[in-house]
């Protein structure tokens, strides 16, 4: 078919361009703008070049927060992915109980972040919280406001409670797509339960699991509300994750230059890691269709 060439067609893209410009590009550019300037108040800005970025690279505070952030994301992925898969494997395949399980599993996903934070903040209190009180009366000296390890355990368990369902639901969807003949063939071939998981279920779940890992990584890397509500970043700076630190810097201290450079770095790290995930996933797909 002959293609019609009409340069005016570019105008059709304009609405999207405008929308994206206002929602993403312009805000990002203001951040870029702040990151290369210094301000002494009264809206007076001076060119500062790459000073903020240099500062950032030498900032112990940033590296510590990044370390904590990576540890947090790593920990919740290491728990939620195997746990989610385990839950999915043990969910009923069909019938009434399958529906009941699905609804129950979805419930935590529907609760707003700050509500989750509040629930756990109260839940873990030693005076009125069920969890804190129980631990305390069992003789465990539990106190998430004073003890860094306890604070960490609390926010990790909270995230596991909130988001394991997502991994489980995605893994469940992957499992449901496996034709029954595969399980029958495995029984004929006398495959062990482990072999069925390793050679049938895991390969078939790989695609959805990659999506689950990507989603959980991005979300956990950007997490702010829940740990902020529970620990406020404390005790000390023990649970100050990247976003909490960023907000402190930008709004608490009003160091716009530092914070802007921080934001750009933050954005680039997420972009880079997501790109790696994406590339791996696309290659997995390619290998499947080859």
């Amino acid at each position, binding site marked *: 078919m002959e293609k019609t060439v009409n340069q005016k067609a570019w105008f059709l893209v304009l609405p999207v361009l405008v929308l994206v410009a206002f929602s993403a590009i312009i805000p990002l550019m203001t951040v870029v703008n702040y990151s290369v300037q210094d301000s002494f108040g009264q809206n007076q800005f001076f060119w500062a070049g790459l000073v903020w970025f240099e500062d950032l690279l030498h900032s112990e505070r940033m590296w510590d927060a990044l370390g904590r952030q990576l540890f947090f994301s790593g920990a919740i992925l290491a728990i939620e992915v195997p746990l989610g898969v385990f839950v999915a494997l043990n969910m009923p395949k069909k019938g009434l109980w399958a529906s009941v399980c699905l609804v129950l599993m979805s419930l935590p996903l529907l609760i707003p972040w700050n509500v989750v934070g509040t629930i756990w903040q109260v839940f873990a209190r030693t005076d009125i919280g069920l969890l804190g009180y129980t631990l305390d009366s069992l003789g465990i000296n539990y106190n998430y406001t004073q003890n860094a390890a306890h604070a960490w355990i609390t926010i990790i368990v909270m995230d596991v409670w909130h988001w394991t369902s997502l991994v489980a639901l995605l893994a469940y969807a992957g499992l449901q797509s496996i*034709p029954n003949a595969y399980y029958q*063939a495995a*029984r*004929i071939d*006398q*495959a062990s339960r482990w072999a069925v998981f390793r050679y049938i279920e895991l*390969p078939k779940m790989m695609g959805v699991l990659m999506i689950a890992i990507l989603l959980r990584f991005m979300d956990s890397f950007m997490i702010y509300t829940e740990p902020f509500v529970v620990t406020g970043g404390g005790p000390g700076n023990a649970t100050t994750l990247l976003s909490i630190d960023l907000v402190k810097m930008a709004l608490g201290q009003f160091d716009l230059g530092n914070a802007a450079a921080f934001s750009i770095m933050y954005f680039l790290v997420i972009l880079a890691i997501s790109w790696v995930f994406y590339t791996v996933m696309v290659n997995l797909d390619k290998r499947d269709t080859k």
Partner: protein
Amino acid sequence: MAKITLDNLAHSYLPNPASDDDYALKELNHDWQDGAAYALLGSSGCGKSTLLNIISGLLQPSQGRILFDDVDVTHQATAERNIAQVFQFPVVYDTMTVRENLAFPLRNRGGDEAAIAARVNEIAQMIGMEDVLSKKARGLTADAKQKISLGRGMVRKDVNALLFDEPLTVIDPHMKWELRTQLKKLHHDFGHTMIYVTHDQTEALTFADKVVVMYEGRVVQIGTPEELFERPDHTFVGYFIGSPGMNVMPARVEGSRAYVEGTEIVLTQGYQPLEGRVEIGVRPEYARLTQSEGMPVKVRRVEDVGRHKIIRAECFGHDINIIAGEDDRISADMNRVSFDPAHVNVYANDWRVQGEAA
């Protein structure tokens, strides 16, 4: 290798089957002889796969027993029964290579690696996949994947039986013929008891020593291809086997005479008075178009299929097919049909009635 006995076996997918219609597989008693090749033939949904899955232990029957060499295995798991089964759609382990796929059933039972490697090469040669042994199975075509499934089914030498559930559906016609030949050879060489489910009569008749025909959850006839052709026990067998199928017409039978709409047909056997719906069945091969004898017919069309002609006609409002030789002349005044009396079967309520010598 074993003799497989089905004793009083039946299966329903419903928890509390009430009537006969609730059973996917109706009561069945049968011995599958050790080392014989059987084809299980029937239209879709007639219970073939159900029966196969019960034999392999993937399904627990609602009633009855299964015995291997007179040992009750009804409650044994699939693994203990030592059965190989190949399914309609290819099942391969995606992340494994072709070699690992073929070796998988052997490795699961433990065994000497050298012996496994030798056996895998043997099977690979049989299915023509020696040159892709090291490739990952996931990238292969459906054809190739199904060959791997077949190979995995055949790789164990000591299985009690080899079950095939329409395994050649996804294979292209040329390869189909070749694989079927391979299966027959395998059967000849090793003498496994084989059960081959199919809805393709050519496949069934060329593969098997004995063909088991199923209809609506019931085994309606077990016999050699010749028996199924000459003396179908049930009108369904008549329709289903043969091309075109048997002509079946309502009739009245008195002694050794049958009457179709008042026209007399001589039978070679005599019959007691029959109850229910009485029909006669005649294969198109044993019907002849004539000028003077037999019942009046209206010829609709003549199809020349190469080695013979098929005459499609109407007789008292019933469709009737007649096969004539390639060189037989068919003229406009041939408007009657006569049957070869030795090959007229009598049916009451769809089941063949055995006559007595007249």
